[in-house]
């Protein structure tokens, strides 16, 4: 009889401490030994993990009020500006934000030693943070300036809200130019001196559920060492791309918007990063449990690095100037071996996403589930999948009209 399990049946087993949980790496060996059907029968949950730079991350914070009250017009945390164009003492700080006085790339390549990601790490680590805010003063919010030292425990709310995380597959970056370039994919040596990649491959959440059958809005996950949820599909979610026979996209495709309470997180799993010549960002730890509802889900989770291909992209001209170039594809087994062959040349590979940390996350999530601390959730709504008709857009070339007409419209 075909394997068929419901979320409720799996959760019942988790509550009884009887669920069979393996990581997305371990499932490969189970399948090799027992075959798909038997493995699907025995395994209830497969845990995934990823830990890499994810620029589209940040945190909403409500500071509570000063006395007298303030409506913040601008606010800085350790010199890093947070966006406060929302309610009086609410703000959003982005992982890629730099301090006001950062030298940026003025002396190239810049170092970017501190930014929003480092700040979020420091907050979660319980460190003291310098809070500065200015306001213009109103009858209800008379205060115009706040200077204080705060810690995470002093604020009312702090939750991570990351608009785009857990990219399903990504580019393999090379440099076909003549000079060293400094990118968000790290340092790329000229004339294809190295090939940089950033995915946990066979452990990565969306590569184990390629059509988002079980990962959807409301899915409970491991986020930054605590518990989080999938809030929406991520920005630039583009599921209708070419896929392999196994359903796995052959390049960047799905993404997730994630949310979770910063107060329950761990600084080990939210780490500020400094990419020389590029900027500051944050490594985010994410783990998603995948329920083995049937044999199809088991087959998806048994995907191997050698069956996941990513496109080779030139970051000298191709990427920055949006020039389409067909440079072929490589698989993650070869990328992880340390060398790949591109155009007949052997190229050393540079990972950006931490595979050992991804494995650790999948293990932690497995332990949580085995101990009955973490139950699975059925998505309340699905995110768009391969049959969607999403067009990947860029900024239109249309220039604003002459100044007069703009002024006209404003009046």
């Amino acid at each position: 009889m075909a394997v068929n399990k419901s979320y409720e049946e799996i959760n019942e087993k988790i509550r009884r401490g009887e669920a069979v949980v393996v990581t997305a790496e371990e499932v490969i060996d189970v399948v090799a030994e027992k075959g798909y059907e038997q493995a699907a029968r025995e395994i209830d949950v497969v845990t995934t993990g990823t830990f890499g730079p994810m620029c589209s991350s940040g945190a909403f914070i409500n500071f509570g009020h000063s006395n007298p009250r303030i409506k913040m017009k601008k606010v800085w945390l350790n010199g890093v500006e947070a966006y406060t164009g929302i309610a009086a003492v609410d703000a959003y700080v982005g992982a890629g934000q730099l301090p006001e006085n950062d030298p940026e790339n003025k002396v190239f390549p810049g170092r970017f030693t501190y930014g929003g990601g480092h700040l979020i790490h420091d907050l979660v680590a319980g460190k003291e943070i310098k809070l500065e805010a200015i306001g213009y003063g109103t009858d209800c919010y008379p205060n115009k300036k706040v200077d204080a030292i705060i810690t995470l425990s002093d604020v009312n709310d702090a939750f991570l809200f990351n608009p785009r995380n857990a990219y399903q597959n990504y580019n393999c970056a090379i440099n076909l130019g003549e000079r060293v370039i400094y990118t968000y994919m790290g340092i790329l040596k000229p004339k294809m001196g190295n090939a940089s990649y950033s995915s946990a491959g066979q452990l990565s959440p969306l590569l184990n559920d390629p059509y988002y059958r079980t990962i959807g809005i409301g899915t409970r996950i491991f986020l930054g060492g605590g518990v989080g949820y999938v809030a929406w599909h991520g920005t630039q979610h583009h599921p209708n791309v070419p896929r392999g026979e196994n359903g796995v996209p052959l390049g960047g495709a799905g993404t997730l918007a994630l949310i979770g309470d910063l107060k329950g997180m761990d600084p080990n799993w939210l780490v500020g990063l400094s990419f020389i010549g590029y900027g500051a960002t944050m490594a985010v730890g994410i783990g998603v449990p995948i329920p083995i509802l049937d044999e199809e889900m088991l087959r998806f989770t048994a995907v191997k690095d050698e069956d996941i291909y990513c496109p080779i992209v030139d970051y000298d001209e191709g990427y920055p100037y949006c020039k389409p170039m067909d440079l072929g594809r490589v698989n993650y087994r070869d990328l992880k071996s340390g060398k790949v062959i591109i155009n007949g040349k052997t190229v050393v590979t540079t990972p950006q996403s931490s595979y050992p940390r991804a494995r650790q996350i999948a293990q932690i999530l497995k332990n949580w589930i085995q101990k009955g601390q973490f139950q699975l959730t059925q998505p309340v709504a699905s995110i768009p999948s391969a049959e969607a008709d999403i067009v990947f857009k860029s900024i239109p070339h249309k220039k604003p009209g002459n100044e007069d007409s703009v002024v006209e419209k404003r009046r």
Partner: protein
Amino acid sequence: MKNKLVCYFSAAQSEQPIIYRLVKDYDLIINILKADINPQKEGFLVLELEGERSSYDQGVAFLKSLGVGVEPLSETVVWQPSVCIQCGACASFCPTEALQIDRSSMEVSFDNSKCVVCGMCLDCCPTRAITLHFEIKEAV
């Protein structure tokens, strides 16, 4: 030629325009990497000196003639496993495999004895888990 040196000063020497003389009289390009002079005006300077071989030698002889202690700089690379996130980015930049990835676990390790202090790994580590340390003796 180009070399890094540590110069140890006593109070009398730190009053003199040593850098100026090195530039002016010996035509050397000087980069001050680190300096620490205490309130008693004793301390050290870590310098990078660049110039013709003969002027370099004469410049160093000049420093020694003033009683400045001159020693080659010994630098070491320190890898902090507690800061490292095991991304592996550094290993492909290391020419000597001092930083290495175990391909089955994908874990990075550092073997100080293989490190030639080329500095290649310093720029590419996003967590700054790898740092350069100058070995400097107590001020004389």
